């Protein structure tokens, strides 16, 4: 009976950990999409976007380690690489900034989609 209880507790912990990881990455993706949209909007209005880019970089740095626990680092590292280019592009007010932000948002969205057990990803 002891083994059964341990197994039930372990399975419950694994399932709740799985759900928590999905929620965590979804929250992170929402935030990245929000900051991305804000950068796009401010850029189109010709405003300074360095603050928002810094916010995005800080946010990613804070969550990067936890994400490495949740997903394969091969999927996390490309996002880090793309984000690391943003501050320089923002300072230069480069035309490449928005495509770069789009790329970050796309990769983050893809990472988020990967977490949710859709039939196509399960099979």
């Amino acid at each position, binding site marked *: 009976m002891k*083994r*059964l209880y*341990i197994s*039930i507790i372990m*399975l419950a912990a*694994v399932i709740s950990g799985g759900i928590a990881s999905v929620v965590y990455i979804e929250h992170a993706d929402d935030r990245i999409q929000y900051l991305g949209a804000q950068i796009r909007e401010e850029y189109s209005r010709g405003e300074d976007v360095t603050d928002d880019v810094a916010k995005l970089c800080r946010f990613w740095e804070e969550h990067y380690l936890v994400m490495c*626990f*949740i997903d*394969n680092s091969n999927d996390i590292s490309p996002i880090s690489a793309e984000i690391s280019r943003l501050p320089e592009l923002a300072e230069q007010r480069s035309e490449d900034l928005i495509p770069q932000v789009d790329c970050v948002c796309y990769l983050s969205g893809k990472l988020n989609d990967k977490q949710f057990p859709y039939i196509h990803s399960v099979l």
Partner: protein
Amino acid sequence: MLIVIIRAFILYFVIILAVRLMGKRQIGELQPSELVVTLLLSNIATLPVEDISIPMTMGLVPIFTLVSIDVIVSCLTLRFRGLRRAVSGSAKIIISGGKIDQHVMRELRFTTDDLMAALRSQQIFDLNEVQLAVAETTGTISVYPKKSAQPVTCEDMSIKCENTDPPVMVIADGEVSKAALRYLDLDEKWLDSVIKAKGTTVENVFIMTAENGSTYTIIEREKN
């Protein structure tokens, strides 16, 4: 490289924990479901060791999930017979009344060589000695020999025999097993007196087994 070593170290203990959680049945003959879990565990455990881009959680989560499911399913099979049959299958009688059921053998894809090998492993070399043979769910064959082929028992000879438990290891390599003494309802005072009577010490005893307070065997350690 260091990461691989640390991961291998962690997974070693995790797998031991997982197998311990699955219980003693795991170590002996495997039921089909246990075989599946064992195969999967060994495969999953290697992934995070081989590829350090895969987080450890990707290895640990499926291991704990599989083991938990296995324990839960095996507990459910204790209660539900139908589930037990679905998961483990059921035993099949291969020889009944001394007659081989060829239909069951075909169904189990059991060759005559397999049957003879299984009988030989049970010390039966003549098919005519078998009364009943059952193919268990673990894949082993249990054999019940004909009365004429069974060894003579005390009952057959009308001799009164006392049923006693087998001897228990009380001292192993100079170390006293308190659990064994408790099992035999004996104490260390008794042990000291017996050891003294033999003219030795506990440290010098290689093996000591006992059935009760009066029947015991002491083998002393050889001096190099």
